[in-house]
């Protein structure tokens, strides 16, 4: 009885397998469909940069807190960037930011510019944003960087003999 049922089930299963093997592939192959969100490349708006959840969260926080001084256009229109001296780097400025380590960016965002020997106009966000939120912001900056950001190779463990 049990075997008999198993055979019927197998037949149905194979039938299903055969009848449903069309369509759907196009949906799977579109790279945009694999991203949680996208952000247009600031230097080339036609090109969409895929973002994962963490980077998308960073994007949301960026447009709430940072865009006013770290972009040339803002949701409200004009940017505050030109009012500042020294002029802060754009969030996608790979030439300025790719050389900075994640730790440095985390520190300057948490503690503010004056704590890191930079402009005091950069305020500290460590008591407003969580560490995870600041890490998300850094992940977003890395994702949109032009030229593209290359993460450093994982460091070899140091041997005491050297």
């Amino acid at each position, binding site marked *: 009885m049990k075997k008999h049922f198993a055979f019927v089930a197998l037949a149905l299963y194979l039938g*299903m397998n055969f009848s449903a093997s069309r369509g759907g592939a196009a949906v799977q192959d579109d790279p945009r469909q694999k991203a949680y969100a996208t952000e247009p490349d600031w230097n080339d708006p036609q090109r969409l940069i895929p973002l994962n959840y963490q980077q998308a969260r960073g994007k949301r926080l960026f447009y709430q807190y940072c865009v006013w001084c770290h972009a040339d256009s803002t949701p409200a229109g004009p940017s505050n960037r030109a009012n500042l001296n020294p002029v802060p780097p754009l969030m996608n400025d790979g030439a300025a930011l790719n050389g900075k380590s994640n730790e440095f960016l985390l520190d300057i965002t948490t503690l503010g510019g004056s704590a890191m020997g930079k402009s005091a106009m950069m305020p500290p966000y460590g008591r407003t944003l969580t560490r995870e939120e600041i890490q998300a912001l850094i992940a977003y900056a890395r994702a949109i960087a032009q030229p593209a950001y290359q993460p450093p190779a994982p460091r070899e463990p140091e041997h005491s003999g050297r």
Partner: protein
Amino acid sequence: MRGNRLQRARKTHRTSALSQFNSWLTFHRLSLCLSMPVLCAALLLTTRAGFGQGNPAAVADQHPNPDQVWTPQLNAADRCATCHPGVAPPGPARPSVQQPDRVDPLVPHHTKDWGCTVCHRGLGAAAEKEQAHQPELAPAQPLLPTSYIQASCGICHRADLPDTPQLNRGRLLLSEFGCLGCHRLEGIERPAMLGPDLTDIGSKVSAEWIYKWLKEPRTIIDDSGNTVVSGYQMEPRMPQFHLKEEELRDLSAYLSSLRSNPVDPYKFDPKVVAALENSPDLVDQGEARFRQMFCTTCHSLAVTRGGDTKLIGGDIGPEMTKVGSKVNPDWLVAWLRNPQAFLPKSKMPRYEWSDQDLYVVTHFISTKLTDPDLLQGVPKLGAPIPEQIRFGRRLFLKKGCGSCHAAPGMKLQEDFGPNLASLGAESISHLHFGNAKIPRSLIAYLQAKISDPFSVNPTAEMPQYRFNSADLDAMTTALLSMTGAPSSSAMERLIVPRTQAEFHPTGAFAQVYERYKCYVCHQFNGYGGTLATDLSYEGSRAQRQWLIDFLKNPQTLRPSLTLRMPQFNMTDQEASILADSIGWNLRSPAVNPASVDPAQSTPQMAALGKQLYEVKYQCQACHSIGAGGGYVGPDLSNVGNWMTAAWIEAWLKDPQALLPRGIEPRRALTEDEIKALTAYLMTLRQSEPAGRAAVAAGVGQ
């Protein structure tokens, strides 16, 4: 051998694999027919029958220890981690790593606790790779492409989440474009007013205009004569119905006959009319008043620059580029004097008009916001005849117009379209694809149906909407999140409901609040619009006299904003009522009015505060005083007359305690620094010589 392994796995999870499949199936309400492949796969694993061993793709053959996550509260179990070892623990993205080894990004729900299929869908209990991933093999629960994954958040989170913008926008669009008129949707309630009440529509517009509107509601045309379509903001809320010539005539005749309360033309003061009538700059005066009153905060006007047509202005009210060619001028005057008399649920505030303002503004709208070609191609319709009216009335019901619009003697047609409350869990075998050449998937179906209802059903009653691809994706996401009512009480406990208790003041406050519709733009204790400042704690922030002055003549406080509070021409009495009521009712527990005694601030404290403002903390990066400074935060030139000292002190201590989403970061200021900064800011008053303020702002540059 394999049986032993499975027995081990079963012991670990204290339940049999088959019963888990069964409960999983119950949760997803698969029909028996569709469950066959799953049952079969289960049988392949659980029986020792020989045919299972012949299948080289069976997961258990390649991965000796199935890694199973069982989420009892969701009745869900999946084995995705068997082949995806990288999902736990989550970590930063490494694009070079491909699936199945890719690390799950840092999402709020850890796969260890929630499994994978709760968010990604797919057949997590499948025994074969293809079956787990390909939608055609899992018709009831296909794997969700990541770009729509926010739909899964929406199953439990009925309230909008900050990190699901696509889902939130989709829900907004479903609500804004009147989908709830015909369809029932899970978690979104029917708005108070979908389309306007048509009881007196005949006194507002002509039969010819109705004909044009029914035939093609889009009226914005670019330089080359094409109808401009650019998604949400440009689209009229009214969709396009597929009506035949006869139907257009009958419906126009019926609707234009609806005028039970004819407009009584307003009698302007003859002296005002005499003074303005022949004034050469009448239109310019009207436009100036129109701009000064900031009608464009809610209404937009199309502007063509360099061949590119754009709408400038807000989207709370309808776009008004050609409204002068639409409405009867007498109706316009009556409407502006009292919108709620015509549409009781309108969001439009009832302005306080002087005869002069009303005369010039209505003149500007009727003569300048026009398009002589608007009704081009519309036949002369003549007076409606009773037979047309009768047919039109029947059509009104047949086409489901009563789903969104009220008309005399008609009941609201609720549930005119199918119930979509569980559309997101619909099996593709229940969908009718017709002759559409699209992939057989729910997502492809939804997108085809929304972009062109006829493509999947040539006899569809659903009207034509036009959305750009981002909005189409957003709506698809929101629809995919609607998987019906929770199927178990455990699941029900996980639902995060939508909450927005209405804020209803009482007494004289209520009358002014309702008259000027403050809540359309402002938030009050979590209820209201998001266009303007949250006023929940305004009574702790603003000084009474400043509030009165502002309400009488609103000026922008943030130089970077282009939309401003309209000038309602409030009376002195109304402004006082509002200022007093705000002061009494809208207070923050974090602000103690007795905490700061302005009399104790000394010039030394203010001087120290100035030093802190300009040098140590460089507040001028975001704030301006006089001519210099940034424009991220509000201009502080007059803050001493504007804010209370107690508010400034509490704000400097912790801005987010007063405004949770405020962007000013909380700093580690000492008590003395806070006192000094407060003392300095309270000295900033605009009545002081302008020169000093300018010098003060220039120091830090």
